[in-house]
Protein backbone atom coordinates (compact mmCIF):
# COMPACT_ATOMS: atom_id res chain seq x y z
CA UNK A 1 0.00 0.00 0.00
CA UNK A 2 1.43 3.32 -0.98
CA UNK A 3 0.01 5.65 1.63
CA UNK A 4 2.47 8.35 0.72
CA UNK A 5 0.75 8.90 -2.61
CA UNK A 6 1.71 12.24 -4.01
CA UNK A 7 1.06 14.23 -0.88
CA UNK A 8 3.27 17.23 -0.27
CA UNK A 9 3.16 19.51 2.72
CA UNK A 10 5.04 22.78 2.50
CA UNK A 11 5.37 25.92 4.60
CA UNK A 12 5.11 28.73 2.00
CA UNK A 13 5.35 31.40 4.71
CA UNK A 14 5.77 31.66 8.47
CA UNK A 15 2.05 31.49 9.06
CA UNK A 16 0.93 29.05 6.40
CA UNK A 17 0.88 25.39 5.63
CA UNK A 18 0.08 24.08 2.20
CA UNK A 19 -1.05 20.57 1.37
CA UNK A 20 -1.09 19.28 -2.20
CA UNK A 21 -2.59 16.02 -3.40
CA UNK A 22 -3.86 14.60 -6.69
CA UNK A 23 -7.05 12.60 -6.98
CA UNK A 24 -8.02 10.26 -9.76
CA UNK A 25 -11.45 11.77 -10.39
CA UNK A 26 -13.12 14.93 -11.70
CA UNK A 27 -13.35 17.84 -9.25
CA UNK A 28 -17.07 17.43 -8.53
CA UNK A 29 -16.39 14.08 -6.82
CA UNK A 30 -13.66 15.53 -4.63
CA UNK A 31 -15.72 18.62 -3.85
CA UNK A 32 -18.63 16.41 -2.76
CA UNK A 33 -16.33 14.29 -0.61
CA UNK A 34 -15.17 17.49 1.11
CA UNK A 35 -18.61 18.96 1.69
CA UNK A 36 -21.19 16.20 2.22
CA UNK A 37 -21.25 14.97 5.83
CA UNK A 38 -22.06 11.36 4.93
CA UNK A 39 -18.93 11.37 2.75
CA UNK A 40 -16.63 13.46 4.96
CA UNK A 41 -17.04 11.14 7.92
CA UNK A 42 -15.91 8.23 5.78
CA UNK A 43 -12.49 9.61 4.93
CA UNK A 44 -11.34 12.57 7.08
CA UNK A 45 -10.29 10.20 9.81
CA UNK A 46 -6.52 10.21 10.06
CA UNK A 47 -4.74 7.13 11.39
CA UNK A 48 -6.56 3.82 12.01
CA UNK A 49 -8.72 3.77 15.11
CA UNK A 50 -10.38 7.16 14.65
CA UNK A 51 -14.01 7.70 13.72
CA UNK A 52 -16.09 10.84 13.26
CA UNK A 53 -19.30 10.34 15.24
CA UNK A 54 -20.36 13.95 14.71
CA UNK A 55 -20.22 15.59 11.30
CA UNK A 56 -22.57 18.49 10.63
CA UNK A 57 -22.30 20.72 7.58
CA UNK A 58 -24.47 23.67 6.63
CA UNK A 59 -23.03 24.31 3.18
CA UNK A 60 -23.76 27.98 2.54
CA UNK A 61 -21.85 31.20 3.11
CA UNK A 62 -21.88 31.91 6.88
CA UNK A 63 -23.08 28.35 7.39
CA UNK A 64 -21.40 26.37 10.15
CA UNK A 65 -19.77 22.96 10.20
CA UNK A 66 -18.62 20.78 13.04
CA UNK A 67 -16.46 17.66 13.16
CA UNK A 68 -15.93 15.50 16.24
CA UNK A 69 -13.45 12.65 16.20
CA UNK A 70 -13.05 9.82 18.65
CA UNK A 71 -10.53 7.02 18.79
CA UNK A 72 -10.66 3.49 20.15
CA UNK A 73 -9.12 4.63 23.46
CA UNK A 74 -11.82 7.25 23.90
CA UNK A 75 -9.72 10.30 23.02
CA UNK A 76 -11.81 13.11 21.56
CA UNK A 77 -10.88 15.92 19.17
CA UNK A 78 -13.31 18.44 17.70
CA UNK A 79 -13.40 21.50 15.51
CA UNK A 80 -15.97 23.96 14.23
CA UNK A 81 -15.91 26.31 11.30
CA UNK A 82 -17.83 28.81 9.21
CA UNK A 83 -17.90 28.86 5.41
CA UNK A 84 -16.68 32.09 3.85
CA UNK A 85 -16.74 31.21 0.15
CA UNK A 86 -18.33 28.31 -1.68
CA UNK A 87 -17.74 27.88 -5.39
CA UNK A 88 -18.51 24.28 -6.38
CA UNK A 89 -16.55 22.36 -7.50
CA UNK A 90 -13.54 24.69 -7.51
CA UNK A 91 -13.09 26.52 -4.28
CA UNK A 92 -13.94 26.46 -0.61
CA UNK A 93 -12.85 29.00 2.02
CA UNK A 94 -13.64 28.67 5.70
CA UNK A 95 -12.54 29.81 9.13
CA UNK A 96 -11.88 27.00 11.57
CA UNK A 97 -11.01 26.45 15.19
CA UNK A 98 -10.35 23.37 17.27
CA UNK A 99 -12.22 23.18 20.58
CA UNK A 100 -8.88 23.04 22.39
CA UNK A 101 -7.85 26.14 20.42
CA UNK A 102 -4.28 24.94 20.03
CA UNK A 103 -4.02 27.15 16.97
CA UNK A 104 -4.27 30.38 18.97
CA UNK A 105 -7.46 31.62 17.34
CA UNK A 106 -9.17 30.97 14.04
CA UNK A 107 -7.32 29.58 11.06
CA UNK A 108 -8.39 30.31 7.50
CA UNK A 109 -8.48 27.33 5.17
CA UNK A 110 -8.64 27.78 1.42
CA UNK A 111 -9.13 24.69 -0.68
CA UNK A 112 -8.77 24.84 -4.47
CA UNK A 113 -9.67 21.94 -6.76
CA UNK A 114 -8.20 22.16 -10.28
CA UNK A 115 -9.47 19.59 -12.72
CA UNK A 116 -7.46 18.50 -15.74
CA UNK A 117 -8.08 15.48 -17.95
CA UNK A 118 -10.40 13.86 -15.46
CA UNK A 119 -8.01 14.24 -12.51
CA UNK A 120 -8.09 16.80 -9.76
CA UNK A 121 -5.19 18.63 -8.16
CA UNK A 122 -6.15 19.76 -4.67
CA UNK A 123 -4.34 22.50 -2.82
CA UNK A 124 -5.30 23.23 0.76
CA UNK A 125 -3.75 26.32 2.35
CA UNK A 126 -4.15 26.81 6.08
CA UNK A 127 -3.32 30.27 7.39
CA UNK A 128 -2.68 30.63 11.11
CA UNK A 129 -2.86 33.79 13.18
CA UNK A 130 0.90 33.67 13.82
CA UNK A 131 3.98 31.53 13.32
CA UNK A 132 3.72 30.35 16.94
CA UNK A 133 0.14 29.36 16.28
CA UNK A 134 1.08 27.31 13.26
CA UNK A 135 3.94 25.57 15.01
CA UNK A 136 1.75 24.99 18.04
CA UNK A 137 -0.94 23.42 15.91
CA UNK A 138 1.52 21.00 14.42
CA UNK A 139 2.75 19.92 17.80
CA UNK A 140 -0.75 19.42 19.04
CA UNK A 141 -3.40 16.79 19.21
CA UNK A 142 -2.79 15.78 15.63
CA UNK A 143 0.16 13.96 17.05
CA UNK A 144 -0.90 10.66 18.50
CA UNK A 145 2.18 9.27 20.12
CA UNK A 146 4.04 8.25 17.06
CA UNK A 147 7.51 6.92 16.73
CA UNK A 148 10.14 9.38 15.74
CA UNK A 149 12.04 8.72 12.56
CA UNK A 150 14.80 11.25 12.23
CA UNK A 151 16.18 9.54 9.15
CA UNK A 152 13.35 11.19 7.26
CA UNK A 153 15.24 14.44 7.56
CA UNK A 154 15.10 15.10 3.86
CA UNK A 155 11.36 14.85 3.88
CA UNK A 156 10.84 17.65 6.37
CA UNK A 157 13.58 19.92 5.32
CA UNK A 158 12.79 19.84 1.63
CA UNK A 159 9.31 21.07 2.53
Amino acid at each position, binding site marked *: *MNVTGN*LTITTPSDTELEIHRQFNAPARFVFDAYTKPELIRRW*MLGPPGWTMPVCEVDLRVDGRFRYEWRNAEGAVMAMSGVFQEIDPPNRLVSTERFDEDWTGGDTVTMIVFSESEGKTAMSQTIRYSSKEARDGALRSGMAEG*MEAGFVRLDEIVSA
Partner: protein
Amino acid sequence: MTPSRLDVTFAALADPTRRAILARLATGEATVNDLVKPFSLSQPAISKHIKVLERAGLVTRGRDAQRRPCRLAAKPLAEATEWLEAYRRFWEHSFHHLDGLIEEMKALEDKSAAERGKGDLR
Protein backbone atom coordinates in the same frame (compact mmCIF):
# COMPACT_ATOMS: atom_id res chain seq x y z
CA MET B 1 9.88 20.69 23.31
CA THR B 2 9.16 24.40 23.79
CA PRO B 3 8.13 26.46 20.75
CA SER B 4 11.34 28.49 20.87
CA ARG B 5 13.46 25.34 20.89
CA LEU B 6 11.56 24.06 17.89
CA ASP B 7 12.11 27.39 16.13
CA VAL B 8 15.84 27.14 16.73
CA THR B 9 15.87 23.58 15.43
CA PHE B 10 14.01 24.48 12.26
CA ALA B 11 16.16 27.55 11.66
CA ALA B 12 19.25 25.37 11.93
CA LEU B 13 17.75 22.86 9.50
CA ALA B 14 16.87 25.57 6.99
CA ASP B 15 20.40 25.60 5.56
CA PRO B 16 21.37 22.93 2.98
CA THR B 17 25.00 22.78 4.11
CA ARG B 18 23.96 22.16 7.69
CA ARG B 19 21.59 19.42 6.56
CA ALA B 20 24.42 17.84 4.60
CA ILE B 21 26.65 18.02 7.67
CA LEU B 22 23.95 16.27 9.72
CA ALA B 23 23.60 13.62 7.05
CA ARG B 24 27.37 13.07 7.22
CA LEU B 25 27.28 12.89 11.02
CA ALA B 26 24.46 10.37 10.84
CA THR B 27 27.06 7.94 9.50
CA GLY B 28 29.44 8.57 12.41
CA GLU B 29 31.24 11.29 14.36
CA ALA B 30 33.64 13.65 12.61
CA THR B 31 35.95 16.49 13.53
CA VAL B 32 35.69 19.94 11.95
CA ASN B 33 38.79 19.04 9.92
CA ASP B 34 37.14 15.86 8.68
CA LEU B 35 34.30 18.01 7.34
CA VAL B 36 36.43 20.66 5.64
CA LYS B 37 37.41 18.51 2.67
CA PRO B 38 34.12 16.89 1.59
CA PHE B 39 32.26 20.18 1.92
CA SER B 40 34.90 22.36 0.21
CA LEU B 41 34.46 24.99 2.89
CA SER B 42 36.97 26.76 5.07
CA GLN B 43 37.49 25.58 8.62
CA PRO B 44 35.90 28.76 10.08
CA ALA B 45 32.86 28.30 7.83
CA ILE B 46 32.41 24.70 9.00
CA SER B 47 32.94 25.78 12.61
CA LYS B 48 30.24 28.38 12.23
CA HIS B 49 27.73 25.84 10.92
CA ILE B 50 28.64 23.44 13.70
CA LYS B 51 28.03 26.19 16.28
CA VAL B 52 24.52 26.79 14.90
CA LEU B 53 23.81 23.06 15.00
CA GLU B 54 25.19 22.86 18.55
CA ARG B 55 23.00 25.72 19.69
CA ALA B 56 20.00 23.96 18.22
CA GLY B 57 20.98 20.87 20.16
CA LEU B 58 21.40 18.91 16.96
CA VAL B 59 25.11 18.29 17.46
CA THR B 60 27.18 17.59 20.54
CA ARG B 61 30.97 17.78 20.70
CA GLY B 62 33.39 15.46 22.42
CA ARG B 63 35.53 16.54 25.36
CA ASP B 64 38.80 15.65 23.71
CA ALA B 65 40.39 19.11 23.69
CA GLN B 66 42.33 18.51 20.52
CA ARG B 67 39.79 16.93 18.24
CA ARG B 68 36.41 17.77 19.76
CA PRO B 69 34.57 15.34 17.46
CA CYS B 70 31.03 16.31 16.41
CA ARG B 71 28.20 13.86 16.92
CA LEU B 72 24.61 13.93 15.80
CA ALA B 73 22.17 14.42 18.67
CA ALA B 74 19.10 12.57 17.59
CA LYS B 75 16.47 13.83 20.02
CA PRO B 76 15.71 17.37 18.78
CA LEU B 77 15.78 16.14 15.22
CA ALA B 78 13.39 13.36 16.10
CA GLU B 79 11.09 15.85 17.80
CA ALA B 80 11.15 18.19 14.82
CA THR B 81 10.47 15.32 12.46
CA GLU B 82 7.72 13.92 14.62
CA TRP B 83 6.05 17.30 14.66
CA LEU B 84 5.50 17.48 10.92
CA GLU B 85 5.25 13.75 10.50
CA ALA B 86 2.14 13.47 12.68
CA TYR B 87 0.42 16.06 10.54
CA ARG B 88 1.46 14.33 7.36
CA ARG B 89 0.22 11.03 8.73
CA PHE B 90 -3.20 12.42 9.49
CA TRP B 91 -3.65 13.59 5.91
CA GLU B 92 -1.94 10.63 4.30
CA HIS B 93 -4.30 8.23 6.00
CA SER B 94 -7.30 10.44 5.31
CA PHE B 95 -6.48 10.87 1.62
CA HIS B 96 -5.97 7.15 1.30
CA HIS B 97 -9.54 6.67 2.55
CA LEU B 98 -10.64 9.39 0.16
CA ASP B 99 -9.07 7.62 -2.84
CA GLY B 100 -11.16 4.55 -2.05
CA LEU B 101 -14.30 6.58 -1.51
CA ILE B 102 -13.87 8.42 -4.82
CA GLU B 103 -13.55 5.13 -6.71
CA GLU B 104 -16.77 4.03 -5.06
CA MET B 105 -18.50 7.29 -6.03
CA LYS B 106 -17.35 6.95 -9.64
CA ALA B 107 -18.51 3.33 -9.84
CA LEU B 108 -21.88 4.29 -8.41
CA GLU B 109 -22.31 7.05 -10.96
CA ASP B 110 -21.32 4.75 -13.84
CA LYS B 111 -23.84 2.22 -12.61
CA SER B 112 -26.69 4.70 -12.41
CA ALA B 113 -25.74 6.12 -15.82
CA ALA B 114 -25.85 2.59 -17.24
CA GLU B 115 -29.24 2.00 -15.66
CA ARG B 116 -30.54 5.24 -17.11
CA GLY B 117 -29.19 4.11 -20.48
CA LYS B 118 -31.12 0.85 -20.23
CA GLY B 119 -34.26 2.79 -19.42
CA ASP B 120 -33.88 4.86 -22.59
CA LEU B 121 -33.77 1.73 -24.71
CA ARG B 122 -37.03 0.43 -23.38
